[in-house]
């Protein structure tokens, strides 16, 4: 199994090397292989299909621009997800952060409204909405780590490599992210049943 993984890794790295020299086919193969991974990360970060598709496109565009910076011995997936993570954060700052402050007041009112007036809503969809908004309240790093762990099923080790931080930091930030979500969700969890 280990040998097979290593062989796959080598093949992928050789494709990345070919992209460096402008190989269209190699770029196409890598895009096909990793588009869903990038989409999953972007979708779970933004909860929006269109945003996620923009992220996928921008990520592969940046990959093509920065292909010469990829070092052969490294894990290509982690390197690509590092680009995707940066694109997500840039995109969020550019398109969403401005609205965040504006939405903050609305959110609290809406969240209260949702939690009391459950007769007209599907409780599970309300809870999802509240949870999405609670995720937005996490710091960029906590949110990214939670998303990578919960929705992309990445190991702490991989997350540490992608975010370029220590393993202990990933563990600690993940713990804080879940605990913060629990605190933010606690007023709604009992009521929504």
């Amino acid at each position, binding site marked *: 199994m280990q040998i097979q993984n290593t062989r796959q890794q080598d093949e992928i790295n050789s494709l990345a090397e070919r992209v460096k020299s402008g190989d*269209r086919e190699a770029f196409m193969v890598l895009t*096909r292989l990793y588009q869903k991974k990038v*989409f999953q990360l972007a979708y779970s970060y933004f909860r929006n*299909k269109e945003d996620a598709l923009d992220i996928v496109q921008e990520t592969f565009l940046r990959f093509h621009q920065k292909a010469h910076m990829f070092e052969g011995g490294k894990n290509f997936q982690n390197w690509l997800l590092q680009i995707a993570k940066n694109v997500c954060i840039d995109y969020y700052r550019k398109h969403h952060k401005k609205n965040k402050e504006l939405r903050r007041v609305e959110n609290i009112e809406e969240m209260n409204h949702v939690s009391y007036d459950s007769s007209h809503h599907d409780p599970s969809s309300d809870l999802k909405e509240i949870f999405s908004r609670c995720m937005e309240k996490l710091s960029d790093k906590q949110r990214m780590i939670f998303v990578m762990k919960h929705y992309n099923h990445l190991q702490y080790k991989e997350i540490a490599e992608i975010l370029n931080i220590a393993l202990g930091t990933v563990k600690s930030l993940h713990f804080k992210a879940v605990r913060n979500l629990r605190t933010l969700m606690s007023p709604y969890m009992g009521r929504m049943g």
Partner: protein
Amino acid sequence: MKDCKRTTRNLVAFLYGELDEKEKRYVETHLKTCPECKDELHRLEEVYEIADSLKPDMKKALVSVDWDKLPERIVGEVFDDRSIQERRPDRAGLWPLLFQPRFRLGYAGLLLGIIVGAVVTFLIFRSPPLQVAESGKIIVPLGFYDKMELEMARRETIDYLDRSEYLLLDFVQSTPEKSARFWQSDFVSQRTKELLSKKRYIDPQLEKIKLAKAKLICDQIELLFFELIQTSEDLSAVELKKIQRLIQERQLLLKIKLVRKELQKSEV
């Protein structure tokens, strides 16, 4: 208590299967005996489940995307689209990017801005011309009077030095017999008085920093004239000869020439 702290710290990693065997067994054993930590785990599991409830949405989104067309579109945009090609600073370098035709208008605006800025700066900092107000009065810029005063003082001082030089030259060159009567003659006496009154007139102007050196020499001349006009009657020919020699030794005439030259150069 210590066990609870250790367990709580590891509960999230336990929930996500990130603990090694030893730590996992430790948490499991502790949870069997600690209802508080077990409750905490349940609360975290609730969060986990709510987070899981978003997964079907992602699955729906995944299904709705055409995964065959998307790579083709991306590859097409990366390799065929000119606008994307132009976004490759790493390969092409920054120069071609900077000199794109679409930036022409921007650069023209920038150049126009620089020219306008230069003209405005020039207009602000240059000395404004004299203006005539509607009432007929001449409006002069700030500092104009100071400059005029300085220039007048400079010219008056040059004139004072000129005339003093001639007078002193006459005195120095006069014979011992003539030098005794020199300062008593009406002509010299009149000239000296004129010079002394002129000195009083230019005194306030000489206080200006730029004329400090001229003031020093003018003061010396004034003192000399004053003394000579007052005491020459009582002085013997030998004493007057001594004064003549002193003027020559101190190079008073040379100093006058130098200061005058300096003043002539420093026209305001």
